[in-house]
């Protein structure tokens, strides 16, 4: 079915030309010389005051990277990247040593204000803490780690988190302050040799967030990181490591934007999640990097490796992503379901427009007993974009009782775009039960029937079901994330083609 007019218009409104975050902040920055070499890796490590083990770790990754070639299997096309033509380190020049948040460059604060980072937190940054009991219960507290180009410029709510025992800080600080945790977990989910971009990241990553939630602690607030690429010709290589110790819970949000530029910029991040026994991690992303202009010029290359390891029994990792930006997206947030009874979830809405190319999906690797996973993916392609879902569901021989449900639907708007589905489903033992479907009408016949029977049309019913699915996660997002995301998913799902 062709998309209804309303849908077409709504998508037009969020077309690439309407990119709202394309402004640039004029600010002095300190950059490493262009290009990549052992010296640059050493320079970054030195800038971060890193211990020697970290430098060695980076160098090992760098040497390995030299032997690797770029992957070409994804359905994306782009001119060859010149890895020597990129700045691997750019940091806003500090006017003096920053001891309190008031001393942060007002330009940067203004940038985040403009980006709509909740004012409440800006108030926090200014040290105007509301009195106890005055808090508006309707608004959730969110701790923010703001990453500007290669460095983290501010982390809020640190003290309150510390009270709960939660460690939330830039990873560069964590390397210095909690080396035992970092050494134990860094690279344990995404090894340095994992893939071309992950290896590159391991060598040159500059900052990112580190979270450790101690046993039995339910993180008292949402944690979030806001990534901003500002500088020209720089690559952003952030690294995030989240560890949820036994019986803990944490919800983490990630947002990204970049200025409008004609050149393509590289963003190669690595995110590692570790959930121990009975722990739960919820990871949400609203990715809105600059997608390039309507002629397909410029935009971010978003080549990201995200992986969660359900290491303990009864652990759970849930990925939610709303992907609207980037010229090229190459991203497969995955779950390794190692612990018995662990579960993984992947909810994704990927919207491509203009000349964007999206190749995204997930991997659910069932290793433990009675593990379950659920994949809900909605791809919407408009303009001249290509939108691919690529996913793997596999059950190991010993993963008895593995259970997966996958539904991936695509919607095409216009006849110049393409939507593709490439699922891999590998069942290696008889007690694995896998269901994969790609037609909206099949999401859940019972629920649909229930809605239709109460007078909703098929379309409304499907919308309700899908929205219902994503909404509980979206509602956990900070207000402006949720508004943004909801605007995007409210797009009618009529005419899904599987």
């Amino acid at each position, binding site marked *: *079915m*062709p*998309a209804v007019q309303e849908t077409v218009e709504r998508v037009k409104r969020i077309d690439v030309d309407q990119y709202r975050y394309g402004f640039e902040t004029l600010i002095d920055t300190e950059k490493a010389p262009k290009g990549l070499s052992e010296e640059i890796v050493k320079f970054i490590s030195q800038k971060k005051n890193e211990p020697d083990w970290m430098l060695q770790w980076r160098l090992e990754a760098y040497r390995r990277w030299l032997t690797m070639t770029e992957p070409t*299997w994804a359905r994306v096309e782009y001119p060859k990247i010149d890895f020597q033509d990129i700045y691997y380190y750019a940091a806003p020049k500090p006017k003096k040593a920053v001891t309190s948040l008031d001393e942060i460059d007002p330009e940067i604060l203004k940038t985040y204000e403009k980006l709509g980072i909740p004012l409440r937190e800006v108030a926090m940054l200014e040290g105007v803490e509301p009195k106890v009991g005055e808090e508006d219960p309707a608004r959730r507290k969110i701790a923010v780690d703001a990453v500007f180009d290669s460095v983290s410029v501010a982390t809020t709510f640190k003290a309150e988190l510390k009270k709960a025992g939660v460690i939330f800080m830039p990873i560069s600080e964590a390397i210095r302050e909690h080396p035992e945790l970092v050494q134990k977990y860094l690279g344990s989910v995404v090894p340095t040799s994992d893939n071309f971009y992950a290896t590159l990241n391991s060598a040159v990553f500059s900052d990112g967030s580190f979270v450790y939630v101690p046993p039995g602690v339910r993180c008292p607030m949402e944690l979030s990181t806001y990534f901003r690429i500002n500088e020209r010709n720089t690559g952003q290589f952030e690294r995030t490591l989240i560890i949820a110790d036994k019986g803990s819970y944490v919800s983490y949000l990630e947002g990204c934007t970049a200025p409008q530029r004609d050149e393509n910029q590289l963003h190669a991040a690595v995110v590692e999640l570790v959930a121990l026994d009975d722990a739960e991690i919820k990871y949400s992303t609203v990715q809105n990097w600059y997608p390039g202009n309507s002629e397909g010029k410029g935009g971010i290359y978003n080549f990201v490796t995200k992986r969660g390891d359900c290491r303990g029994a009864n652990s759970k990792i849930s990925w939610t992503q709303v992907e609207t930006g980037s010229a090229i997206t190459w991203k497969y947030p995955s779950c390794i379901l190692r612990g018995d009874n662990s579960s993984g979830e992947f909810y994704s809405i990927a919207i491509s427009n203009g000349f964007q190319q999206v190749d995204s999906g997930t991997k659910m690797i069932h290793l433990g007993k009675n593990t379950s996973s659920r994949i809900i993916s909605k791809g919407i392609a408009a303009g001249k974009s290509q939108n691919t879902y690529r996913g793997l569901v596999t059950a190991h*021989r010993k993963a*008895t009782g593995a259970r997966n449900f996958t539904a991936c639907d*695509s919607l*095409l*708007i*216009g*006849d*110049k*775009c*393409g*939507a*593709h*589905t*490439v*699922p*891999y*489903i*590998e*069942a*290696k*033992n*008889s*007690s*694995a*039960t*896998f*269901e*994969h*479907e*790609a*037609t909206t009408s*099949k999401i859940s016949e019972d629920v649909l029937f229930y809605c239709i029977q109460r007078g909703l049309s098929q379309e409304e019913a499907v919308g309700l079901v899908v929205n219902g699915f994503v909404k509980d996660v979206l509602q956990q997002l900070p207000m402006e994330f949720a508004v943004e995301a909801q605007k995007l998913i409210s797009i009618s799902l009529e*005419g899904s*083609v*599987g």
Partner: protein
Amino acid sequence: MNVALAKTGSGRAVSDLFASAEGRLPGSPAVIAVRREAFETYEHLGLPHRRIEEWKYTDLRALVGEVLPLAASPDAAALKRAAEAVKAHAIEGARKLVLVDGVFAADLSDVKALGAEVSLKTLRETLEKDAGLLKTASTDAVISLNAAMATDGVVLSIADGAHLSAPIQIIHVATAASVSAFTRSQVAVGKGVRATVVESFVAAGAKAYQVNDAVVLSVGDNADVAHIRLLDDSPDAVNITSQFVTVGANTKLNFFNMTTGAAVSRLQGLITLAGEGSELSINGVNLLKKTEHGDTTLVVDHAVPNCVSREIFRAVIDDRAHSVFQGRIIVRPDAQKTDGKMMTRALLLSDEAEADNKPELEIFADDVSCGHGATAGALDDSLLFYLKARGLPEKQAQALLIQAFVGEAIEQIADDGLREYVIGIAERWLEQRQ
């Protein structure tokens, strides 16, 4: 280091393969030149392995290792054994065309019974004139190898408007052990034709042989054609078949594949809908046991608008067997109003069985309805319990459920007689299991 050595090693063996066969390959000098070129392509690529996306789940280097030498032409004793096998596998009333170890056996075939509407030539005859038949719409290592080595095949042409009263059955018989047979056939179906073509692969006592077959089928406008393929090779044989199908306008094509044999089998097909208003029904059942490996890889290419395609595949996997299904539906930019559905289900009967499904959609038109579904799982315990509670022994209860499971695909065969014949094959397989 090891890899490089292995390459050189198998590379040398490969050259011998062609050199020792070259004198026996039919064709004019120009045709031989085309063969040589095809062989060079194969030699360059080598046997497909898991690093090649299309062969991810069927690593011929690991499963097969090497291509066996070309089979010799069958002698009188071989033909006699073949005759018996043909008798056992012939479908009642069908016009038989028999290929023994890759060579057309006129004496075992019903050439005269074909009638005036069907013209028959052998590949051997055709290649004396030109190499056109050695060229295909797409190619890979095994197709190139087939072009280089094909010794014979049937070249059929069914005249416009013909309504064939009996099916044509092409029977491939293997009589020699530890050799390869390379065949390539072409079936050109004219406009308005109603016909049924059956292909059977059987063994006459032969063991551990390899079959590499290619079929080029073109169906004209307004036709109604059934194409049934029955693979019942020896349990230690290898069968790799490549099909190229083009469908005209307002045509119905009903294809069914049944795999019950061969240690390693792969059916790879490219089906192009080239005329509007056509209906395609592609179905298949893999019944696999022991360490058998059965792969079905199909690409349905909707090149024009207003076509319908339906695919229903079932795999029953026992012991340590491995079933692979890779299906891709392509909808080209202009192919509006396409309706494509693909459903593949695997039933795992043992803890060591493996099912790999890769149903792909590649869609470039917006006004289409396409979908796919894939499931994998064991037999439903509650259904088994229900049947056992009513006094059926475990194995029989399983057999009943399996029959129902594969029935959904077999049902798609339009011809009553052939459907019953295929149900019979499934029943015998289930009986053997008990």
